[in-house]
């Protein structure tokens, strides 16, 4: 160590050699990166039980010798594809559930067609979800169904649960689910009713384009995309890093358009009037108060969630009518809470221990 400069002079040749090797690897892997596609995502074997327009219901093939009595229906967020929960073997939440003895179904979404611009909140909460629940009951032969909602899928599940408090939902698990939309400060400002003419937008474009949804997500952290490109270049020699980058980048940019009328309701009822938090929300004229939900509920939130900040999610458990309710705050962000290396260590085992005892 050089006492004057603080540099370890003996280590410099090794460091230079390592950097030269990485530079060579970057060139080779860089070419590979652009000439190959990423890992295949969402490949856990499944059957399409039902498909209707924007909605698809999958049943995943069991992977254990015996399964819990109560099937699980996952309700995906309407802005993104469900394969975030089924990335690749070893990093798939679906695979984890199957191997731990759950019978798993997923309500996933595809881009709404132009003629589906008139889909309303009612269609999602009073038609799509109940329809899927009925099909899960018929397919599994069980009356009880546990529901897992991710992000806005959690909001839809809460609305469903509050309108149908007498079942058949047996347990409810929400991941990073906002209820106080005032606290989603940037989204709230983007959709400020003084300046954002949602009627004009929906009337002119029909379905809200995915580019707009993606831009609004990316604006929450405007420097992060550029920085992630720099990090990709620095780490392109590292196959594990590149694989992970490609999985998450593909999913994050695979944003779905939103049905126009549905978006109008989200903006007016949730972003502007904060009706879910204020207990004034209704869907198709049916009151949707969170206090109506009496089933066991687990709410998992991320400590560093920039999309759904903790303040937007923290009141959920207090407002739910259940006696059996729990909030768990875990390290991670909006996506890393549910997918990736950290989820494997943190969220998934917690969910298994909570849901297993309530699935018999």
């Amino acid at each position, binding site marked *: 160590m050089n006492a004057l400069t603080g540099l370890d002079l003996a280590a410099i040749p090794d460091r230079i050699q390592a950097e030269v090797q990485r530079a060579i690897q970057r060139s080779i892997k860089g070419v590979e990166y652009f000439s190959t596609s990423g890992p295949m995502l969402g490949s856990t074997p499944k059957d399409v039980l039902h498909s209707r327009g924007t909605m698809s219901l999958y049943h995943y093939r069991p992977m254990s010798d015996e399964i819990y009595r109560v099937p699980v229906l996952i309700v995906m967020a309407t802005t993104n594809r469900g394969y975030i929960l089924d990335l690749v073997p070893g990093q798939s939440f679906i695979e984890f559930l199957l191997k731990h*003895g759950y019978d798993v179904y997923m309500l996933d979404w595809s881009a709404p067609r132009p003629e589906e611009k008139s889909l309303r909140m009612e269609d999602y909460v009073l038609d799509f979800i109940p329809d899927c629940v009925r099909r899960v009951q018929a397919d599994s032969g069980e009356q009880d169904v546990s529901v897992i909602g991710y992000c806005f899928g959690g909001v839809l599940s809460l609305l469903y649960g509050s309108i149908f408090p007498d079942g058949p939902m047996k347990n409810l698990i929400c991941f990073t689910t906002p209820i106080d939309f005032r606290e989603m400060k940037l989204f709230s400002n983007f959709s400020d009713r003084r300046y*954002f003419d949602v009627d004009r937008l929906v009337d002119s474009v029909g379905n809200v384009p995915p580019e707009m949804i993606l831009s609004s997500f990316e604006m929450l952290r405007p420097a992060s995309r550029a920085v992630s490109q720099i990090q990709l270049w620095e780490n392109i020699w590292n196959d594990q890093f590149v694989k992970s980058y490609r999985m998450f980048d593909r999913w994050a940019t695979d944003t779905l358009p939103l049905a126009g009328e549905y978006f109008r309701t989200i903006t007016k009822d949730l972003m502007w009037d904060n009706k879910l938090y204020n207990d004034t929300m209704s869907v198709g004229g049916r009151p949707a108060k969170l206090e109506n939900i009496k089933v066991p509920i687990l709410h998992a939130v991320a400590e560093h969630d920039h999309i759904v900040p903790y303040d937007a999610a923290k009141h959920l458990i207090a407002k739910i009518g259940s006696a059996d309710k729990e909030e768990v705050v875990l390290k991670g962000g909006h996506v890393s809470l549910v997918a990736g290396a950290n989820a494997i260590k943190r969220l998934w085992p917690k969910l298994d221990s909570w849901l297993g005892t309530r699935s018999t």
Partner: protein
Amino acid sequence: MTDKITDPVALWQKMVGEMEKGFNSFATKAMETPEFSQAMNRAGGAAAGAQKQFGDLMEKYLLSMNLPSREQMTGIAERLQSIEGQLGEIRSMLNQMSAASGGSPIDAAPRPPRTKRPPSEGGGHK
């Protein structure tokens, strides 16, 4: 072993990380202002209108060239998806009918029994 403090690569990575945090924080503060919302929505409204007009114009152009528009191609893809969905449903119904009549489902493995107990109650992980 190179010390992180004296490692130029680690220093560069730290600097990039700090710049990201700083810029995000600065931008967030700017984007929380009503002025930003006003400017963004003015630009966004104009862009949405222009996008719609351009789409209509392009549709007319493609029609005159006797070519299908993206919307029509999407429509065909969606119809195919719908047919696939209906085939899936027919298969599902056939499976249910087969199961109801005592036979085994056409293409599915037999389902495991719903007898699993949580490990805390003595049910092991299989």
